[in-house]
């Protein structure tokens, strides 16, 4: 079988989606860690694989694939192992709908907080202003340049942050309601929507402790713990190298009480 190589950062957000999908399918792959805070994703070696300079990317033999959700769909269709898409066409539609909603509406709002409070300040502390300016100038996608500038120099506007905060609140309520309808997010079986959603939501009890906890979102907590118990999830999170990944251990607690919003930001790598 042709060799599979995955270029990824921490098991989190976009990188974590294909990582966990590969683990669930039982596909052997070469893990290639790209340190995002060290700007590995803009180095020539990586740009030769993905000229866009974003993570993740996967190669399968001579094929090169990008876009985390689309990679997951490829992984599910191409390899043997448990099917992560159900047979029913309406269920598959619902899975795709939720993944698009999370990828394009909800996740960017979470990541705006993550970039403002974690990615930007950490990268600035590690490299200093001059080196960062030079790094940003080398980013191939103009919209990623803008994002990095805003994150590093604290330029997200209050209106932008407020809108992201609003979406996080709405999105968490939507997830809670949906998980009240069935065991898994978008169908009656564990699917790519759950893999996607876990990567978005696993640290919410830490980063949004006022919005996601055993009192206000019991369905979300049940769902997160069920995914955390899966052997593939355990294996996947072992590939993390920073405190970001170890946040997942919060799910070992049987009861997580509500906490103040301010405790979220201070505890958190989001």
């Amino acid at each position, binding site marked *: 079988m042709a060799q599979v190589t995955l270029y990824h950062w921490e098991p989190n957000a976009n990188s974590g989606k294909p990582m966990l999908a590969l683990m669930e399918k039982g596909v052997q792959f070469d893990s290639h860690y790209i340190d995002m805070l060290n700007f590995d994703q803009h180095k020539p070696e990586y740009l030769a694989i993905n000229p866009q300079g974003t993570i993740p990317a996967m190669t399968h033999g001579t094929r090169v694939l990008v876009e985390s959700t689309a990679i997951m*769909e490829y992984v599910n269709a191409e390899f043997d192992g448990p099917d992560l898409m159900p047979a029913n*066409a309406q269920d598959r539609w619902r899975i*795709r709908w939720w993944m*698009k909603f999370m990828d*394009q509406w909800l996740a*960017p709002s979470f990541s705006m907080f993550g970039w403002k409070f974690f990615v930007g300040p950490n990268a600035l502390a590690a490299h200093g202003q001059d080196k960062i300016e030079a790094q940003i100038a080398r980013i191939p996608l103009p*919209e990623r340049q803008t994002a990095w500038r805003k994150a590093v120099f604290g330029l997200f506007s209050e209106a932008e942050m407020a809108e992201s905060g609003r979406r996080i609140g709405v999105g968490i309520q939507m997830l809670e309601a949906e998980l009240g309808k069935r065991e898994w997010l978008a169908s009656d079986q564990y699917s790519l929507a759950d893999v996607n959603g876990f990567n978005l939501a696993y640290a919410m009890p830490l980063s949004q402790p006022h919005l996601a906890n055993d009192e206000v979102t019991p369905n979300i907590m049940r769902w997160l713990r069920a995914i955390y118990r899966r052997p593939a999830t355990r294996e996947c999170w072992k590939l993390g190298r920073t405190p970001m990944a170890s946040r997942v251990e919060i799910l070992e607690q049987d009861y997580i009480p509500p906490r103040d919003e301010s405790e979220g930001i201070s505890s958190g790598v989001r």
Partner: protein
Amino acid sequence: MAMILYHGEPNGPSLAVLAALGESGVDAQCRRIDLLAGARHTLPDVTEPLARDMGVEGEGPVLVVDGEAMTESVFIAQFLDESGANTLQPKDAYAHWQMLMWCRRITERCAPAAAFLGCKASAQPVLAGMDEAAFTALSTTIASEDLRARWTAVRAGNFPDEQLADSVTKVTDAAKKVEDQLADGREWLMGDLTIADFETYGWLAGMVDLVPDAFAGKDRLSGWLARVAARPSVQAALARASVPNPQSSWAPGPEINRWG
């Protein structure tokens, strides 16, 4: 399983889904609704409205199946294809990934731009002409706060120059992408006819009049537009129009990427 497809004038995502329905051979009842009257937000017999309320696409078609409102034109097209003839998606996983990537480029970059330009040209005058009470009544039926804000911006004629210029660039990029993709003489975007052809056609056909420079001198693109238009499924969709130029009917679409 009774299916009802609520669609706007055959343009944009409504056209893409109507064409996919025709190709699929699936039996669904089609009902044209007036998107600019807000009809999409008050559909009867919807017991699961979430996807209609919170969909990223904005005023796209809604397929109601067993009370569940299904939205997002690419995914409705996949559903119809998988429920019917199963001819519009590559069987090979990599070719399928390529089709999905193509559709994402269209829905994420071209669609917001096309909807923005289209709304400025044709939806703005309609919404601006509504009286305050009528518009308020309409907008309170829109569940999503950000979609409601896009309606309000269209009515107010709030189309910043920077976003207009960016939208023209994105439409131009999409037109060029089609022209380049056809360079090897292929008939359809992915080789065989797929959902990508209809999704792309839906968003681009109405741009020929609005951004003519994007299409000028692109013979392969023009040939492809004519081939898609000639498909019986597209002809049947266009026959559902209630206006002479459905390609100039627009309603608020996907948002322009918030990250810039």
